[in-house]
């Protein structure tokens, strides 16, 4: 089953999709979401599909299996896999291919594993069902692959349930599962997007190793150009269902032809000018704060922090580092177990109900998911107008004028937008509205909790620039919580690095970013993919070398 029919002409592509058109259902209408894209993939080749959300990259990836999600349909073009036409082929013919000759690795392994069955049962399901292997063979094979993918305890881990295994391990187990029938083609659909940066690098390495080892062809889908540069031989850049540019990895990264590609490459280059040391007394001071959620272990341990006026302090760390908890403690949602918080030198009551309206007004928050941060049943007029009425007592005409002013400030046309509902906005626009709502309170400090991580990179950059402009105009202070070091580099004056509820390093931006680092900061920084071909291999080789020299190399907690 390894490479199909040996008599096939070698130059004949494994997969050839020509003029692929896919439509998606919106209400009762069908919109074209992929508009005539050609994809050619040869055996042993890795093709990267890149684009922002709505580019149609996942849809194309699934179309390679002759599959369209519910609410989508393959409306035109040909899909020929190893000489077989898949579009319009009967369902059981396609079923015979899926899992056996074409396999799929989903974005979130935690969601794509069935919570009711053990990993190894799910591994064995496809080979046993398709008659490729016996159950015993499949189990033995699973353990081999688990070992190959550097999963801990490869003999036993398969007998666990999905929820008993960490995210990075699950993603590897899913890769193993995709390999179970030794397919000719594997579709990787953003396999590392949900992972922390230090875990991502290890999973990327494992995937790369196993694909190379088994000599499978792969389609690698991602929105991160730096990642795809490490994985793919050839890259297709997609936008709004159209092909923008196609070429070898080297050509796309180093010699892009199209403006859009160049823009994608240019993200992460924005840098805030250096602000120098803080001048005045700090606006917010946190002293020895520890906190826990009821009856669980402590998630914050003795945290000290200061935020000065007109300054941006970035709090960085991986998931579970306690950075979001810190925000909840500051806002009063989670009263600290120990420690105190001062605002302009005055102690803040620990719990939300104890704070008065003025205290609440001066401290605002912006969230990661603009979708859930805006009430879908309120118009922008009400969303932005409510803090004006609530804190400042503005009513009628005055309030209306101020709402319009704020909309202009966030670069949305008031006449067009004031009566819209959030569902009628794009992600970036929603986040702008969240910013306007925070600004309406005329705060001194805004806590930004991962405000850009749910956005496409180009949009995220716009938001960062907007925030910077507002800081300059309105003399705001920001506490910027993020796991994305590129964002940290772009916007912060000071950096606080957190690990397992403690601060491991903090200081001015340049001090923290310049070596020598704390060991963990080092791991973080070195794990961020760079827009260079071969970066992954080099970084791994470097770590290997250091290990060989007997240095201690910190590893991802998710290992």
């Amino acid at each position, binding site marked *: 089953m390894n490479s199909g029919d040996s008599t096939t002409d070698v130059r004949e592509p494994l997969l050839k999709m020509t003029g692929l058109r896919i439509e998606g259902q919106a209400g009762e209408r069908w919109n074209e979401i992929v508009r005539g894209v050609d994809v050619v993939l040869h055996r042993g080749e890795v093709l990267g599909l890149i684009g922002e959300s709505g580019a149609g990259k996942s849809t194309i990836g*699934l179309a390679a*299996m002759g*599959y369209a*999600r*519910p609410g989508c349909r393959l409306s035109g073009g040909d899909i020929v896999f190893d000489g077989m036409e898949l579009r319009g082929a009967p369902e*059981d013919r*396609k*079923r*015979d*291919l*899926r*899992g*056996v000759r074409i*396999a*799929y690795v*989903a974005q*979130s392994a935690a*969601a*794509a*594993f*069935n*919570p*009711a*069955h053990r990993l190894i049962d799910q591994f064995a*399901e*496809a080979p046993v*069902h*398709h008659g490729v292997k016996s159950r015993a063979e499949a189990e033995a094979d699973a353990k081999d692959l688990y070992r190959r993918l550097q999963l801990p305890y490869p003999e036993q881990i398969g007998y*666990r*349930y999905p*929820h*008993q295994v960490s995210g990075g391990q699950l993603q590897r187990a899913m890769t193993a599962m995709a390999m179970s029938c030794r397919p000719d083609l594997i579709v990787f659909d953003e396999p590392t997007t949900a992972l922390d940066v230090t875990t991502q690098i290890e999973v990327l390495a494992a995937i790369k190793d196993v694909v190379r080892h088994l000599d499978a062809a792969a389609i690698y889908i991602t929105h991160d150009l730096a990642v795809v540069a490490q994985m793919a031989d050839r890259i297709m850049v997609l936008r709004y269902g159209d092909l923008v540019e196609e070429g070898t990895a080297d050509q796309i990264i180093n010699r892009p032809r199209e403006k859009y590609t160049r823009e994608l490459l240019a993200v992460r280059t924005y840098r805030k000018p250096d602000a120098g040391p803080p001048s005045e007394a700090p606006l917010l001071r946190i002293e020895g704060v520890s906190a826990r959620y009821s009856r669980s272990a402590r998630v914050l341990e003795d945290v000290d922090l200061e935020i000065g006026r007109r300054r941006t302090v970035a709090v960085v760390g991986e998931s579970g580092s306690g950075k979001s908890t810190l925000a909840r403690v500051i806002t009063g949602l989670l009263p600290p177990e120990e420690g105190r918080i001062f605002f302009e030198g005055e102690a803040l009551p620990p719990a939300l109900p104890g704070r008065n309206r003025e205290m609440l007004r001066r401290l605002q928050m912006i969230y990661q998911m603009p979708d859930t941060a805006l009430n879908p049943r309120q118009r922008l007029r009400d969303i932005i107008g409510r803090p004006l009425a609530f804190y400042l007592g503005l009513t009628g005409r005055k309030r209306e004028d101020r709402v319009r002013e704020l909309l202009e400030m966030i670069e949305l046309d008031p006449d067009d937008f004031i009566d819209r509902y959030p569902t009628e906005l794009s992600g970036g626009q929603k986040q702008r509205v969240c910013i306007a709502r925070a600004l309406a309170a005329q705060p001194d400090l805004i806590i930004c909790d991962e405000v850009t991580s749910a956005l496409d990179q180009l949009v995220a950059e716009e938001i960062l620039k907007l925030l910077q402009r507002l800081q300059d105009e309105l003399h705001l202070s920001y506490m910027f919580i993020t796991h994305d070091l590129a964002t940290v580099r772009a916007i912060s004056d000071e950096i606080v690095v957190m690990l397992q509820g403690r601060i491991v390093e903090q200081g001015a931006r340049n001090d923290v970013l310049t070596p020598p680092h704390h060991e963990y900061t080092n791991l973080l920084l070195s794990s961020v993919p760079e827009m260079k071909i071969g970066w992954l291999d080099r970084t791994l080789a470097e770590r290997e070398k250091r290990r060989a020299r007997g240095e201690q190399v910190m590893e991802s907690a998710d290992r």
Partner: protein
Amino acid sequence: MTQILTMVAQRLALGLLTLFVVSLIIFLGVELLPGDLTQAILGQAATEETVAAFRRELKLDLPPHERYVAWLGGILQGDLGHSLANKRAITELMGVRLWNTLFLAFISAAVAVPLALGLGILAALYRGTPYDRAVNIVTLSSISFPEFFVAYILILVLAVQLGWFPSISNIGEELGFWERVYRSILPALTLTLVVVAHMMRMTRAAIINLMASPYIEMANLKGLPRVRIIVRHALPNALAPIINVVVINLAYLVVGVVIVEVVFVYPGLGQLLIDAVRTRDIPVVQATGLFFAAAYILLNLTADVLSILTNPRLLHPR
């Protein structure tokens, strides 16, 4: 494992607490009933003298709290007391009827549960097809008819016109199993029609709900056939809501069948309760009310525990 035991123990304690409060409410509620037992028992024939004599004999002149304590104490020792009206032991009165009620619930459930699950799974499997729509509309309609209407129609067709089944369920202890089943078919059928729709729709909805989840897509992309996807991948995860709805309906089969009992003259607990309310037979009302509440709480508890046991996260903690 200890986590599960703690959770089960918690649920059990809560259930007992609820039962206690229910017993209080039932006791007080019955105290508030207008008119009293003597009057009801003696009916039009009650004179002041005879009523007074009766009250004295039944100790109705004691204050309520003393009677409550005595009652609860009795129950804890397994003594439900005696009927005020005919002085028979309540355990004896309830015994036969309890068995009848459970029997009817059992045969209805034996038909309804597999039928509902089967139809629900098939409807999910053939979602959007004429079969699905037909089952949907038929079941929707069947929950839309008042129970007594369904019952009368069944009697008209199956008993009066075709003569296949008896129109009343004249059940006695001396009957053999199959004879009992035969005589209970019409009430069981009525109940089945009433509960199948609910369970079937819930099963279908629970499965369809899951069909959008990524692991079902994954199973699809592994090339598994639809039946296997639904039975092996969707069903185990849909168990909790399905168990819940099955239990709600089982509870209904035990406690909610008063109308069916009336129409088919089925000697079950519901009729006992109604009779007792009518005649103000306080101990019987209290005992049956308490039993119904206990049955409901117990079934809910079972559902909770089963939901816990079918949840791999709780069953296999990290």
